């Protein structure tokens, strides 16, 4: 008993003066100290590119540190030998933002394949009973026997936590666990994390969201540009101070410039009775009515997979409508990419890796991508006017402060925030009358998120219309003049005075509170 108590005082893991660079002379981490104690929730804050993921990958042995020291429960570890299996043996487990369960297998099979206990054959039934027992104890609900690819984001995450516990995890790292969750799912996750803390395990909680960190963490470490800019205890937490540590400067409140010429009489764009087939067994869209006016931001809230992709694709002109109509300026329009674009409808893709930008293409090539049909600025007689194109890109780079400031650089080398800045700059360059923006700040840090939000509000102030489809409820509430919720492919109005719980209920069930 006394031995256990003495052990409990030691940190589960302690990193000292960790250095890491993937490319010589470009350090990702610089002399980082970080430790987690048993029975503690330790939050890790930082912007994109601050080095959070790399630090965590070192913790779980996926990435090797160049210099520094690692101690596990007080025992030093050989850096060169600290790989994933060593980390797993030490009980360190990570719940990644993108699920690392094998999608084509059931949850039970996922429990089995690295189970160190067994022999030549694996026992699906025993795994199932272990799963049921753990899910009962920590109240993390996962449908038994289901294939991972059929689970929702929240269910996958719970399955992943359960797998980590099944491995005997003593230290659980959660990488932005609430990024894809509904308010209800988030509310259910927190008590489960507290139960883990109560059981003496250590939890590392990575987040962008200051309020979650305040609600949950015992300690917070803030990373900025690869170095620790501060470690605070629960009592000293204060959103302004955390923001300053993260950004290196104060973040002022978001200004809302008033919209000019917001005529509410005739909508710029109106959908009537739109129905469309779902993709990949998705729910599709059913009888959607939606209108967006000039000088207005309409927010579409909802949990991922409730028809957002389908709505986005219809409005981008790449998905067929089964029934219903789309009107722009009161006139019916057949949604087609080029028709919509000529009417001033612009589309900021929610999937910038796959639909918005082409990795492997330079900034310039991406900049002129959407102009390639008819734009005389960049093309003459079908031939590219390279000098004009790269000059236009350089102007955008300077105006939007994109790094690296190199028009010939490969887009794949840009950080998420800079890639999104480029995409936003491109969509705004044609002065759209309607911008369809889908999850415009997904995966962005505080600074870049602020930038995108300001651009959307500025567009609204210039009397353009914005349809904001976002799974981030806070973002919708912050920006939108009017909100609706998508639930199982249907649109439900959200009353202006609805609180978060009521909105959550509408998002889940579609019935108003």
């Amino acid at each position: 008993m006394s031995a256990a108590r003495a052990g409990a005082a030691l940190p589960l893991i302690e990193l000292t003066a960790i250095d890491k660079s993937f490319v010589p002379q470009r350090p990702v981490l610089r002399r980082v100290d970080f430790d987690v104690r048993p029975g503690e929730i330790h939050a890790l804050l930082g912007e994109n590119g601050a080095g959070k993921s790399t630090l965590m990958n070192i913790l779980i042995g996926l990435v090797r540190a160049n210099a520094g020291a690692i101690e596990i429960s007080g025992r030093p570890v050989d850096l060169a030998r600290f790989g994933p299996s060593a980390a797993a043996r030490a009980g360190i487990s990570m719940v990644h933002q993108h699920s690392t369960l094998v999608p084509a297998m059931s949850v039970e099979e996922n429990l089995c394949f690295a189970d160190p206990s067994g022999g030549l054959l694996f026992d699906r039934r025993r795994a199932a009973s272990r799963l049921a027992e753990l899910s009962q104890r920590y109240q993390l609900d996962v449908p038994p026997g289901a294939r991972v690819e059929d689970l929702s984001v929240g269910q996958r995450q719970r399955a992943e936590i359960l797998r980590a516990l099944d491995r005997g995890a003593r230290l659980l790292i959660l990488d932005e666990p609430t990024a894809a969750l509904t308010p209800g799912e988030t509310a259910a996750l927190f008590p489960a994390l507290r139960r883990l803390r109560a059981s003496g395990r250590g939890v590392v909680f990575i987040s962008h969201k200051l309020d979650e960190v305040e609600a949950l963490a015992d300690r917070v470490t803030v990373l900025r540009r690869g170095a620790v800019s501060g470690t605070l205890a629960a009592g000293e937490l204060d959103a302004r101070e955390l923001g300053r540590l993260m950004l290196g400067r104060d973040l002022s409140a978001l200004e809302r410039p008033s919209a000019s010429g917001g005529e509410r009489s005739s909508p710029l764009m109106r959908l009537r009775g739109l129905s469309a087939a779902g993709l990949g067994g998705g729910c599709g869209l059913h009888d959607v009515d939606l209108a967006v006016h000039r000088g207005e931001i309409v927010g579409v809230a909802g949990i991922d997979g409730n028809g957002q992709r389908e709505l986005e694709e219809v409005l981008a002109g790449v998905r067929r409508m089964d029934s219903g109509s789309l009107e722009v300026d009161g006139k019916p329009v057949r949604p087609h990419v080029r028709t919509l674009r000529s009417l001033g409808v612009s589309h900021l893709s929610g999937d910038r890796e796959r639909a918005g930008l082409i990795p492997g293409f330079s900034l310039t090539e991406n900049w002129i991508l959407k102009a390639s049909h008819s734009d005389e600025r960049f093309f003459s007689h079908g031939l590219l006017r390279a000098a004009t194109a790269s000059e236009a890109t350089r102007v955008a780079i300077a105006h939007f402060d994109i790094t690296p400031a190199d028009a010939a650089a490969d887009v794949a080398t840009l950080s998420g925030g800079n890639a999104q800045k480029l995409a936003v700059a491109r969509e705004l360059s044609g002065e759209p009358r309607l911008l369809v923006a889908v999850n415009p700040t997904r995966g962005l840090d505080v600074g870049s998120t602020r930038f995108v939000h300001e651009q959307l509000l500025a567009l609204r102030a210039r009397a353009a219309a914005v349809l904001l489809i976002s799974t981030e409820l806070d973002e919708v509430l912050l920006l939108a003049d009017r909100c609706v919720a998508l639930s199982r492919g249907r649109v439900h109005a959200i009353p202006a005075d609805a609180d978060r719980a009521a909105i959550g209920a509408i998002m889940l069930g579609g019935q108003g509170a």
Partner: protein
Amino acid sequence: MEALLEAAVRLAVPLLLAALGELIIERSGIINIGTEGLMLCGAFGGFAIAVASGSVWLGAAGGGAAAACVGVLFAYFVVVRRADQIVVGTAINLLALGATGLAVRALYPGMAPVSPTFGTVAVPLLSELPVIGGALFRQTPYVYLCLLITPLLAFALARSRPGLRLRAVGECARAADAEGVGVSRTRFAAVLLGSLLAGLAGSALSLAQSNTFTEGMTAGRGFIALTIVIFGRWRPGGIVLAALFFGAASALQHRLQARGTDLPYQLTLMLPYVLTLLVLALASGRSSAPADLGKAYRRESR
């Protein structure tokens, strides 16, 4: 009818062995288009050792071993050096064609000798069964090998821990790695085992279906085996059916030729290959391939 069935099974066996080998490799996430070359190495290695030793059994083992050695080469480039799998596979095909052709001329000037061959062995009682008796139980040992390893492989994939790990590596190498499954080790082993089977398949051509080695004698069967894996949807059961389908097509083709129809024999000879094209055209679009198929895995890349 029974004769046709017997011929279909006989002709399906090299295809099935090679396809099962390819299945093991592809389930680990490696696409090996060098099956043709591995079969050729197996055919030659089996033939040369059978001639030298006078034993078909040593020959068959030698065929498997020869292909496994080439498989080590493939695995080194593809798994360890992470070279492009299509390029290395093509190189293996070209290398095998050239090397076996050179070797057969250098070792046997004039004409390649006749090697000992596997005869048919009838299983008592079972071979008397109506319809399937002759087709399944009055055959060369290669057929019995297939009867043994197909269910074994199906069971191993579905139920054994190594099978589960193999699938995990092929479906999601990153996830497997994060759970402490050695991706490179698993893939190396899969290539080795799959090459061995491809080599046995090749030796079936030189030691059971004919009695000598001729240059390029695999005649595209390695590529048909690739098709069979796709057509069989990466499942042992499906692969057995697909292999029988192609075996039956070949048997039919021989039958048509022997009958002497008005069709030029070149057209009937095309039958298995035309079917390959048709099957690929029809089977594409259904995705049940391992998700990480053809993707080299680097731990520190994101």
